[in-house]
């Protein structure tokens, strides 16, 4: 899910909570947005769980080609030596 979608999902979820807490919707409408809310909160959490947790480094090799490789504290040594 793109960040925009995540943001929209959060905003929609917030709106749903407010709407439900106002309590003036008809029951079937409430149920509909309740289900939507549950779905959104689950999918938001899943997005957070599924997010890529990694740190990478963008490097340029001797031919001027750019590569991305995983970052490790050793890179600091490389950098200071270069």
């Amino acid at each position, binding site marked *: 899910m*793109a*960040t*925009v979608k*995540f*943001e929209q999902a*959060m905003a929609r*979820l*917030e709106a*749903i*909570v407010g709407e*439900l*807490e106002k*309590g003036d919707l008809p*029951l079937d409408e*409430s*149920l509909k947005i*309740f289900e939507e*809310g*549950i779905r959104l*909160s*689950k999918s*938001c*959490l899943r997005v*957070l*769980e599924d*997010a*890529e*947790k*990694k*740190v*990478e*480094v*963008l*490097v340029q090799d001797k031919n001027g080609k*750019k590569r*991305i490789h995983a*970052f490790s504290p050793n*890179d*600091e040594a490389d*950098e*200071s030596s270069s």
Partner: protein
Amino acid sequence: MLFRSNGLRLRFALQEGLHVIVRGRLTVYEPRGEYQIVLEHVEPKGIGALQLAFEQLKERLAAEGLFDQKRKKSLPAFPCAVGLVTSIAGAAIHDILTVLQKRWPLLHIIIAPVQVQGEGAAKQIADAVASLNSIRKIDVIIIGRGGGSWEDLWSFNEEAVVRAIVASRIPVVSAVGHEIDVTLADLAADVRAPTPSAAAEMVVPVLSRLVEQLEDYSVRIQRVMTRRCVFERHRLEAYLSEISHMRFYVQDKSQLVDELTSRLCQAVAELRSTMKQRVDGRHQDLLACNPLLFVKQGLTLIPQLVTRLQRQMKSVILHRRQRIQHAVAELNNLSPLAILGRGYSILQNVGTGRIIRHAKDVRVGDELAARLARGQLACIVKDVIPDTSA
């Protein structure tokens, strides 16, 4: 005299009327016999060379509108991937990574390592910003370095860096040095953070708080919904009990209706049979009263009566006739004429007309009429002889 090779090193533009302090070699230009100074170092008088260069570049770029507030982009609320343009050896990257990973451990971080000071640093920074822009998923870039002298921070005042930041399609957060150090990169960036740690804080929300918020939302809507469902169930139950009451009521009423209907039917049937009886009775009466009947009866009775009458009449007449005959015979027996027939006569005083029964009723000389069976005699009394036997 300023040779191009030396001039390239100047960080500020020479302007007419500018007071400068110079260092160089004094030489003579022989063909014209002129003295000249070959400059090795030029520094503006009064303020430092760097400061002047900064002011001049700032003015020029500002005139181009590169620092305008209106072309600044806003940061994404929930970034997927962050590009970092900084030295991989400095304290800044450590601070940034620490904050990012603490707040938002899920973040994809792509580091573009650069020199942040010295020759070539500006170009590296500018190139790094451009390179990160070619990576699609990055949605925010942090460029920065830790604190240092004004000269250490100089690369972030270079035009190439400013232009790279302006050209970036991805929002850029700058964090150069300490809060008091404002570089041109800071002015060009979409958001300026006072320190690298602050930049990291601006870029990502706190994951744990977001998760808490999501859970809070989830709990709240479930609580609201549960309450709502309980409420609706109660309402439904109330309706149901109302309906069952209604059902009993309807049953009662329909029973009553049934009963009334059957009673009504019965009453109607009774009434009908009574009426039928009465009508039948009248009908019979009416039939009995049929004049034709009487006429019929009359037709047979009358001849009978006539016959009877005639017979009766005959007998009566016969009887009467016999009685008359008998009476006539009787009468004949009693008739004075018959008596006279047997030799008796009737004396009648002619004068008085009285029938004479006693001798003493007559006197001598009276004229008497004697009636005989046939004819009369006119008589005169000669003597009267009274009756001595009595």
